C-alpha cells in the first residue's frame, strides 16, 4: 500500500519521466541524442552503448507483442540493426530517440507477429494471461518497489487511473496493433465507444505524464 511518506520520498528523488534510465544518468554518460548522432556518424561504439541502455525495455516491448522469448531475441537484433541502418532518418525535431526507437520496435514486432502467422497462438497465450491477470497493467506495487524510485511504478500509476475498458482499448491498439474497427469487433463494442475510450484514455495518460513531469 502506498503511503504519503513513501510518495514524498519518491518525489524527493527528482526522477523525471523525460530523463533516460538510471544507467544513463551517470556523470559523463552520453545522452540518448549524442548516441544517436554517433550512430548517424556510423560509430559502432554508440550503438553498443544504446543497446546496453535500451535492450531490456525494447525486448520487453517486443515480448509483450509476440509472447515468444526466442522470436523476441531475434527481433531485438533486427530492431537494433534497423536503428543502425535508419539512424539517418532520425530527427531530434520530431521527437526524442526513445520515442523513435519504441515506434520502430513496436512496428517491427507487430509486423513480425503477422508475418509469422503467430497471431492465433499469441491470442491463446494472451487470453490465458488475461484470465490469470485480468489487467496486465494493474500492478500492486510493494513498498520496496516504490522506495526504489522506479519510474515504471509512476507510469503504471498514471495508466492505472484509467477505467479498465479504456486500458484494454489502449492495450489492444498499442501492443496488439489493432485498428479501432478491429478493437470494436474483438470486444463486441460499438466503434464510437471504442473511439471515445481511446481518445479519453490517451488524453488522460498524456495529461498525467505531463503533470508528473511538472511535479518532479
Amino acid at each position, binding site marked *: 500500500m502506498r503511503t504519503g511518506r513513501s510518495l514524498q520520498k519518491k518525489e524527493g528523488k527528482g526522477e523525471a519521466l523525460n530523463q533516460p534510465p538510471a544507467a544513463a544518468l551517470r556523470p559523463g554518460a552520453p545522452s540518448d541524442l549524442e548516441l544517436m548522432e554517433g550512430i548517424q556518424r556510423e560509430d559502432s561504439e554508440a550503438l553498443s552503448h544504446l543497446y546496453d541502455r535500451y535492450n531490456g*525495455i525494447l525486448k520487453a*516491448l517486443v515480448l509483450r507483442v509476440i509472447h515468444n522469448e526466442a522470436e523476441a531475441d531475434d527481433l531485438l537484433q533486427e530492431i537494433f540493426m534497423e536503428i543502425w541502418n535508419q539512424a539517418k532518418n532520425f530527427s531530434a525535431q520530431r521527437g526524442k530517440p526513445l520515442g523513435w526507437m519504441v515506434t520502430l520496435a513496436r512496428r517491427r514486432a507487430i509486423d513480425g507477429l503477422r508475418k509469422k502467422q503467430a497471431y492465433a497462438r499469441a491470442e491463446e497465450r494472451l487470453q490465458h494471461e488475461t484470465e490469470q491477470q485480468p489487467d496486465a497493467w494493474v500492478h500492486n506495487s510493494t513498498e520496496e518497489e516504490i522506495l526504489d524510485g522506479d519510474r515504471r511504478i509512476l507510469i503504471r500509476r498514471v495508466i492505472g487511473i484509467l477505467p479498465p475498458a479504456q486500458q484494454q482499448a489502449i492495450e489492444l491498439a498499442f501492443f496488439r496493433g489493432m485498428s479501432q474497427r478491429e478493437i470494436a469487433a474483438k470486444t463486441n463494442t460499438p466503434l464510437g465507444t471504442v473511439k471515445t475510450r481511446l481518445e479519453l484514455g*490517451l488524453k488522460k495518460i*498524456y495529461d498525467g505524464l505531463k503533470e508528473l513531469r511538472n511535479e518532479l
Partner: protein
Amino acid sequence: MSFEEFQNRARLFVVGALDPDEMAEFEGARREFGEKAEAFIAECYSLSEAFALSLKPAKASDQIKTRLMEMVKNRQAH
C-alpha cells in the same frame, strides 16, 4: 478539423490506432497546422515511450549483442 480534434487524432496516430480512412484526414490537418502540429506530435511520442517504460525490462540473450556488433562490423567493412 479543429486543433483540439487534431490533438486527439495525434495521440491515436502515435499509438498506431488511427483507421486508414482517418489517416488521410489527419495528414491533411497535419499539413494545415504545420509546425504547431509537428511539435504536438513530437510531444505525443511521450505516450509510446511511457507504454514501453511501463513494462518490466526483459533480459536479452547474451549472444544477441555479439551477433549485432558482428553484423555492424561486417557492414562497415563492405
